[in-house]
């Protein structure tokens, strides 16, 4: 993945947005994907690129809380929006509950799909506190695990939902 150069040689975009709670203000190549920007310009390499065509979900980020494929977005499209990447989930040195459960369940094999899976689960749990197995499967259908470790992933998500439910009570 390399940064694309604009053909007209100029026209940098004055980007203003929030990434992982931090306000960003800088001039960017407008035809760069959000994925490339995060990885190459900000060094946030937790967001992965694999298929670059929306099939795999390894590039998922949350934009204003919604899951989106960062490989299909151009950077200026997040102008004035709030972006959360996998690096933005841990708070004060503590992993997010979904991350914790992934660790506890061993829901990681090669790990390349893990950031996308965790963000897909976060997005689902934000709108549905007690997803059924079927709802988890739909909420995470945009994410491919090439190692096919789906059972532990689902287990981790369900345990995270349970624990979140207990905390709310």
């Amino acid at each position, binding site marked *: 993945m390399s940064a*694309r150069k*604009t*053909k*007209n040689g100029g*026209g940098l*975009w004055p980007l203003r947005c929030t990434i992982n709670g931090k306000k960003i203000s800088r001039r960017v190549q*407008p*035809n760069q*994907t959000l994925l490339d920007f995060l990885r190459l310009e900000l060094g946030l390499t937790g967001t992965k690129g694999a298929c*670059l*065509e*929306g*099939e795999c*979900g390894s590039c*998922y980020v949350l*934009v204003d809380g*919604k*899951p*989106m*494929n960062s*490989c*299909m*977005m*151009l950077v*200026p*499209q997040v*102008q*004035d929006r709030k972006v959360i990447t996998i690096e933005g989930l841990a708070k004060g040195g503590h992993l997010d509950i979904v991350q914790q459960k992934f660790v506890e369940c061993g829901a990681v094999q090669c790990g390349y799909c893990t950031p996308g899976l965790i963000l*897909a689960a976060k*997005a*689902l749990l934000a709108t549905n506190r007690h997803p059924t197995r079927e709802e988890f499967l*739909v*909420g*995470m*259908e*945009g*994410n491919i695990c090439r190692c096919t470790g789906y059972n532990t992933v689902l287990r981790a998500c369900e345990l995270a939902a349970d624990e979140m439910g207990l905390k709310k009570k």
Partner: protein
Amino acid sequence: MFYQPKTVQEALERKAQLKDRGSFIAGGTDLVVLMNAGKAAPETFIDLTHVKGLNAIHRHNGTLDLAGNVTHAQCGRLPVRCLAQASLSVGGPGIRELGTIAGNLATASPAGDGSTALLALDAEVELSSVRGTRRLPLDKFFVSYRKTALAPDEMITRVSIPTTYQTDWAKNGKRGAVNISVVAAAVAITPKKDVRIALASVAPTPTRCYQAERFLAEAGLGADSIRKAIEILRGEIKPITDHRASADYKTHLAGVMVRRLLENLVNA
């Protein structure tokens, strides 16, 4: 260059100035994929994601007006069965939050999931330019393979559909998720009991099956007439053999799918 208009008027003025040199971008689920593959390199973008009001949904007198940026995720929550089902079958959650109804139509994929549902619903598209606004029935919008009736200075600002049709929808593909159709089918029964049948992936554009529809309009909806209509439908579609399936298989499949959908609607 990258433009990010805040109003429809601003977007239309920019498009009128740039015409084909300016690429509209909304969800980016087609355009950026082409760019990633080195198959497109637009010089100038007109980004529609920040246009105010372009993701609004208005309901009035049995009609839903969907503004161009309404996403697949939004369509998936509408009380219009065929469109909701089609929209929820597009990609995964991330793609459904990005992809828009106008983009789905403008890209004019022969496999367009939303297109089949919208064709069966007699959807009307509103095409706007600085010259004014015109409304077109969707079946007049798809011209030929990946070609639409959009003029170089026009954009799709709205799609209107009825809420009064009884509808259903189905897709067969090769996988359980993020699935492109081998065949997708939508059926609808209008309040006057006319039948609409639309298919994707069996012709250069998403297509209505007028001959089968006309037969059913005369013969009525019964077990025998549905079987006969399926024969007619299989004769009027023109799928091609490709890496997804053979023409024969698609022809057979389309008939089975439409028969089941119609039988379910009649028995509902």
